[in-house]
């Protein structure tokens, strides 16, 4: 681990934080502003992965393996969630014959 730690210290931590923040924001923006459900799911994945990246970076920086262990948890959750999300997507396609999320707007007064 020490080699990873020393290696990773070459790039300051802030760079990783900014990168991940940027990726996360892109993901959030995508979830909020994109209409295609598949893109929204991918953006959700993007958000999760950006968090993963950041956790790994921190874990490497502080030589604490707990961060990387947590990444595995997140990956599992992401996988499960993608499965369910894609299932919803398929149901959506079958019912309204489109993947435009703005067409599902009955949850109102």
């Amino acid at each position, binding site marked *: 681990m020490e080699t990873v730690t020393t290696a990773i210290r070459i790039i300051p931590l802030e760079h990783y934080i900014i990168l991940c923040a940027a990726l996360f924001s892109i993901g*959030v923006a995508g*979830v*909020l*502003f994109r*209409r295609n459900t598949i893109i929204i799911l991918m953006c959700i994945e993007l958000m999760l992965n950006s968090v993963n990246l950041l956790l790994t970076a921190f874990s490497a920086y502080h030589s604490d393996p707990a961060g990387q262990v947590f990444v595995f948890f997140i990956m599992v959750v992401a996988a499960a969630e993608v499965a369910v999300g894609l299932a919803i997507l398929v149901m959506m396609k079958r019912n309204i014959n489109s993947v435009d*999320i*703005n067409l*599902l*707007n*009955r*949850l*109102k*007064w």
Partner: protein
Amino acid sequence: MVNPATLAYYSWFVPLFPLAGFLVNSLFSRFLKGGRAGYIASLSVGISFLYSLILFFIVRDNHQFAYTLKLFSFIQTAGFSIPFEFLIDSLSVTMMLIVTGVGLLIHVYSIGYMKEDERFNEFFAQMNLFTFSMLLLVMGANYLILFIGWEGVGLCSYLLIGFWYKQADYNLAARKAFVMNRIGDLGFILGIFLLFFTFGTLSFHEIFSKLEGVSSGTLTISLITLFLLIGALGKSAQIPLYTWLPDAMAGPTPISALIHAATMVTAGVYMIARSSALYVLAPFTMTLIVIIGLATALLAAVIALYQNDIKKVLAYSTVSQLGYMFLALGLGAFSSAVFHLTTHAFFKALLFLAAGSVIHALHGEQDIRKMGGLKSFLPYTYWVFLAGTLAISGIPPFSGFFSKDEILVQAWTANPLLYILALSGALLTCFYMFRLLFLTFSGENRWKPFTASPHESPAVMVIPLVLLAVLSFAGGFVNIPELFGGSASFNRLLAPALAVASGHHSLSHHTEWTLLLISLLLLAGSIALGWIIFVKMSRVPGPDGLIRPWYNRIVFKKFYVDEAYHYFFVRPYEYLSSTLFENLERNVINRIVNFTGNLAFEAGAVIRRLQNGNISFYAFVMVAGILFFFILNLIIT
């Protein structure tokens, strides 16, 4: 003999019988066929009259007699203690005699007059109710009982003016009378309140005894007398509350005779006379009464000159004579006012009933331009009408002469100008009354010919007329002034009940004789003038649509007072009613209330738009919320 107190103790019989008559006639109406209701009503008033006569004999023997009869405790709360009690003294007995006596004659007359009316029973029931209320008024021992009777007669006046209720304008006249009376009553009740808070009681005896040593002209007493005066103005049809009386002629003629000539309208005069102890301490109010009385007397007399309805002439004549009574009151001659009230009751009732006889004979015609020459057809009516006319004009030895002359003498002692004005009024009175007499009975027959010529009224109507004519002739003899060697018994009778105004001078006999002769000459001239115009020249007043010069038109239109009241009071009020309802109520207040209610709906509608179903929007809001809390956290810590 019998103890006077015992007799007075049972004086509640007097109002009881008319009340019983009212109840019998109204509740058992369907069992009373024929003229029975009329007999019952007349009988009850007759019994009251007899009992009043008994009481009169007591009072005649003892002028100071004053008995208070308490029936029960009417209102007693927090120091406001009003017993339901009657006062029997010379003044109340005099009024009782007039009410029941003249009332009895009118009741008997009505049996004939109202014979064909389908609501005969109801008529007599209401007449009895009226008599009951009027008796309460004159027998009451405190201002509240007086007020109860006061409003009671107002009610009966309303009922009886609108007796033939199928006519809309009669109902309007009745309403007008009631509302105008009520305006006066407002003033009256304020006076009563002020009386209570000043003296702690409303009983006549207690108030008047507390007035010993009170100085004249205090503000409180002046206010009290002014308020009471407002009430009297409404009830006795003086300026400015007089316009209801001519309209009240819509009622049957016996009603005009009883209520609007002999009794109800005199209630104001009675009330002020009863309160004389207060009024002598209020010189300002007394002056005001003089002005109003004289003004009314003259105004009404002028208007009467141009009236062509036989009853309207008599109505304005009543207003005018009431003005004379008020003049007398204002001059401090309280017993003269009551004396004139008495004689006026006789001859005015007579005149109205005789007019009723004429109307009856001509099958409802009331326009004197369509009468004439009735002397030969209705001899009795003619002679009694003549008697009444002589009485009202003040020709000796008729009763009107004595009463009016007394007032004129008082006017001269106060101020010669008042005498001149009052005398002019008397001349006008004489003129228009003889105009009425001549146009109705003399000259050619201007009435439509009927299948049968007009015939004299039946005995049941004629006998009361004759009796009233006798009274109009002889009624003055109870109060022959010293000038003619009499002892003014009437004035002396009433003296204990009335206060004495200060500054009372008497005239020398020489002056009195001079004034008397002058007035008699002028009166004779007035009669002659009337004879020339209406008999010799047979002038008949023009039809209503005649183009008249402006000064004639104003008087013919009664100085446009009715129109003015309508324009300034009635129309704005009705306009206000609809406007306030539409604009204030509907548009403003209701809008505000509904607006507040709608606010809730509107707010809900706005917030509802947050729930638009758009998933992206929901997600956006979630993120925004999280960011908001983060930033809040950063700011706070």
